[in-house]
């Protein structure tokens, strides 16, 4: 167990940049989730930390020791690969014992330790099987067991749930979180799944095209996204991003004049005239009596997706598709929905930067 410091870590392939000037401090025992779309450099980041690929620039420190010149086997880093990378010719037991064996642990101790970890990950009954005789979820747990068995200084996971079906994913997600909290192992977890990003870590790093977009606790990132990319990436369904124009006392949004409340007017006017307005689907509610200071949309009945616990709808407003999410069901006559200005996020249309607090 240790902290990890990444300083200006950069990876170039030819003239492309897979990871650009990435810096991050991970505290001892912290669980950090890196989230971003496919191809944004997540696997690259983990491979650089693990020493599987050389850095183009920057430094990696683990437990106060600079490791970027060390070969992978001397970094004390464990990794769960997206493909699991189990040794197919070894039984589960030998897979799990392999890291201990490579460190010269005696056969007896190895066995005891492997069985402890197997217990923790509930694979005790599978120890004498080969990986080919396991289900996807079981393989996944064996991969976790093999990585955790030697109590690494830093634990890396590359989209470990992406090959599991949805139901299993929820179980394993919680299991991974419990195991991490229980062992207190410093963890860096990468995923393209925003649910995992929101629920697993102490902090989330949002990555796009190799560049860090935001580092924050997940709920902070959800509540106050640093830019339009983060706003669109975290949260499902995604935040609506609409072009708006600020006039002296109102915001024109998708052809609609939205009055600005007195409290917000002064600051919002200063950002104008052109802004990108972000409205979360869940910011909408049935409009009661109308009134100013809100964006009102009429949902298309054909788009209703009733999930029981919530309902998803869409509206084509001023040539833009706006997603709406409300708890429970909706009335048959489908009322208009409105979102108050106080729930809006404002971004600069030029560079996507968040405007205001």
């Amino acid at each position, binding site marked *: 167990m240790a902290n990890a410091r990444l300083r200006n870590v950069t990876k170039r392939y030819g003239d492309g940049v897979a990871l650009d000037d990435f810096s991050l401090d991970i505290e001892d025992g912290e669980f950090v989730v890196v989230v971003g779309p496919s191809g944004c450099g997540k696997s690259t980041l983990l491979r650089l930390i693990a020493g599987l690929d050389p850095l183009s620039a920057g430094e990696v420190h683990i437990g106060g020791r600079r490791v970027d010149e060390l070969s992978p086997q001397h970094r004390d880093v464990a990794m769960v690969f997206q493909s699991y990378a189990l040794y197919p*010719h070894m039984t589960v037991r030998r897979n799990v014992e*392999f890291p201990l064996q*490579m460190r010269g642990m005696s056969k007896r101790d190895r066995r005891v330790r492997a069985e402890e970890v197997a217990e923790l990950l509930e694979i005790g009954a599978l120890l004498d099987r080969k990986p080919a005789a396991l289900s996807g979820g079981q393989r996944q747990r064996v991969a976790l067991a093999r990585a955790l068995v030697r109590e690494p200084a830093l634990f890396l996971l590359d989209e470990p749930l992406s090959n599991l079906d949805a139901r299993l994913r929820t179980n394993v997600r919680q299991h991974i979180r419990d195991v991490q909290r229980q062992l207190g192992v410093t963890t860096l977890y990468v995923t393209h799944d925003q649910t995992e990003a929101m629920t697993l870590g102490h902090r989330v790093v949002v990555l796009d095209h190799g560049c860090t977009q935001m580092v924050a606790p997940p709920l902070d990132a959800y509540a106050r996204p640093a830019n339009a990319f983060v706003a669109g990436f975290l949260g499902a369904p995604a935040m609506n991003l609409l072009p708006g124009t600020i006039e002296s006392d109102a915001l024109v949004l998708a052809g609609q004049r939205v009055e600005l409340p007195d409290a917000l007017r002064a600051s919002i006017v200063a950002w104008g005239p052109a802004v990108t307005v972000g409205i979360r689907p869940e910011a909408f509610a049935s409009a009661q009596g109308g009134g100013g200071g809100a964006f009102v949309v009429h949902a298309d009945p054909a788009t209703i997706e009733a999930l029981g616990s919530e309902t998803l709808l869409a509206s084509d407003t001023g040539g833009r598709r706006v997603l709406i999410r409300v708890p429970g069901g909706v009335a048959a006559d489908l009322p208009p929905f409105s979102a108050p200005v106080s729930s809006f996020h404002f971004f600069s249309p030029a560079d996507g930067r968040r405007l205001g607090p």
Partner: protein
Amino acid sequence: MKRRGIVLLAFAIAGVNLVPLWLVVKQALTPERESFAWPPTWVPHELTLSNFSGAAEAVPLAQGLGLSVGVAVATVISTLALSLPAAWLAARREEVGSRLDGVVVAARLFPTIAIAVPLAVIFVGLGLYNDSSGAGLWLAHTLLGVPFAFLILRAAFRGVPAELEDAAQLDGASPWMTFVRVSLPLVRPSLGAAAMLVFLVSWDEFAYALLLQVTHRTLPPLLFYLSAFGYPGLSSAVAVLMLVPAVVILLLLEPALRSGVLAGSGR
């Protein structure tokens, strides 16, 4: 109906291959006059081992057998020792792979018999010509065997996901341990296949064996002499000796080529 056609075809192919094989075995085990009997007899009337003893008297058969086995085994060892690292590197580094491809193809382009003569000249200079332990022949056979083994093993290593080797390194294995504990076991069936094919390449090789050795000959040139000088019974006896490892290898190779060792590594 279709199935019966396939079965018939299989029998036809087997027959075409097995009839001459049977004749050779029969000829080796029956007196020479029966070989020339007309119409030919399919079932031997009289069994005898006299062809084997006759061949041993006519040519240095025991020495030839020893030399053939020795050279073939040594060739397998040296060929695999050279091919394994080269094949692994070629599978993992595309730039190395494409370069080695050229070398391998070039090595197979020239007919052996054309190379045998200049090689003999070089070996005279090096003191390897007609070496009693077959050292020169061993070197020549290694040159023949490497391209085969290289291509088989490279394909095998390509089938081993690089992530398994990455995982082993992160699990604390040195590059050598990674190779021995992970990469090598996963190409074992192909390694076995390569070893057997290289054995047969050497075992069967004629041109170098004829031109690089004079008094210490392997089995193929001995067979050639017996046959060329008109002893079908004696040469059949040598041929049967030569068939034994081929049949054994055939039986060993078949299950090795079928097994799927890589199942289960991934999702």
